[in-house]
């Protein structure tokens, strides 16, 4: 399956390379971990920078995330999804754990406030992996209804649970679930329509 992507890294060949890379990591090959970092380090670091709002925190958690990959490579199962989806889940969970254990409340609040402006503020200075791809994602997100955009932002960038989003936005839990479901479906549809699939 060719997946949604902005940088062409979702081809079947690349997914197979990712899996071979992870097999080498599971076998204890540190160079394979370096290969995986070369492929996805910029995305993971950028994601964590965005989630945590601090380069120092992002660096610490990126290191922790790749160390988790090193330790847990044996637990990856190809049938359940791509390597990068697995890596993304590890990185996001590491960020959420970091916030809960080390992050100061002010940092958390700042990250949340920034997150809700997802469609308006992706900083050019960040030198995104492909400016065009990032622009397309931003444009696709911007077309979502505001309440779906907000729910997605709070879930993805702020790491809030559905229940926390419901409390924060004063919306029923069922409504939040619907917003996430519809938001993700529309986002995919629009990214496909923009030719990023």
């Amino acid at each position, binding site marked *: 399956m060719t997946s949604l992507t902005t940088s062409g890294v*979702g081809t079947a060949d690349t997914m197979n390379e990712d899996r071979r890379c992870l097999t080498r990591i599971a076998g204890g090959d540190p160079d394979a971990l370096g290969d995986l970092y070369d492929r996805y380090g910029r995305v993971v670091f950028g994601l964590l920078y965005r989630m945590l709002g601090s380069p120092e925190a992002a*660096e610490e958690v990126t290191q922790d995330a790749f160390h988790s990959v*090193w*330790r847990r490579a*044996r637990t990856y199962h190809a049938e359940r999804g791509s390597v990068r989806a697995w890596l*993304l889940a590890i990185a996001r969970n590491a960020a959420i754990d970091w916030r809960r254990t080390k992050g100061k409340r002010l940092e958390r609040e700042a990250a949340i406030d920034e997150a809700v402006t997802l469609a308006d503020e992706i900083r050019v200075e960040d*030198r995104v992996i492909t400016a065009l791809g990032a622009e397309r994602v931003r444009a696709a997100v911007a077309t979502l209804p505001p309440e779906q955009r907000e729910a997605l932002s709070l879930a993805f960038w702020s790491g809030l649970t559905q229940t926390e989003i419901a409390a924060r936005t004063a919306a029923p839990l069922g409504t939040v679930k619907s917003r996430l479901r519809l938001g*993700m479906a529309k986002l995919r549809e629009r*990214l496909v329509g923009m030719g990023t699939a």
Partner: protein
Amino acid sequence: MRSHPTDDLAGFALGALEAEEAVTIGAHVASCPTCRAEVRVLSETAWTIAESAARDTPPNMRAAILERARSESRDARRSSPFGAIAVLFSRTVPVAVPLALAVALAVTAAGYAIAQRDAQSYAAALAGVAGGRVVALAPTGEISGVRGSLVVPESGDAYLILELPAPPAGKTWEAWVIRGQTPVAAGITDARGVTTLVLRAAPGAGDTVALTAEPSRGVDQPTGKVVLAGRL
């Protein structure tokens, strides 16, 4: 069969479910090809969002990550004398006895759920299994507060639903599929609380599934005492 939890799949793919919900939905997804396919698509969309934030990394971070991995490899090699490991599941050591007991203690999902009715999240995870066979794993008494069930779904890979304390310092939980006297590494987890672990080795009829605490990153042969075991 339980209906598809359509409304929760986006939250699951985004990691936005409460921990107990995530286990319940995860158990369903692991046993339901339709939902698994949907989650894969959602996860790819999530990755596309993440890509939009990519940025240059600090100059020394790659070297730091690799050094940490290399350092841990060196430590693991020093602490994994294979000679002491292989005896764990051999006929000549007493630990084989709890494994035999485990076979006798294996019960059905219904019986297990009744016995453990106080564990709501654990039971919910079992309830989320969309068909397939469930076999309870018996605690060997090595540690308290641990329990688990083996799920062999109608399609897809077998997995464990586990309730675990945190692993001992420097250790990880590792699952084994034991065929005859030969243990095959089947996956690791550092999770505590209720979690799922998909087995990398498929257990067959007569195989024993066991859980031990092992050095971080897991090992190829078991070194720790068995804390859970059951036979298909």
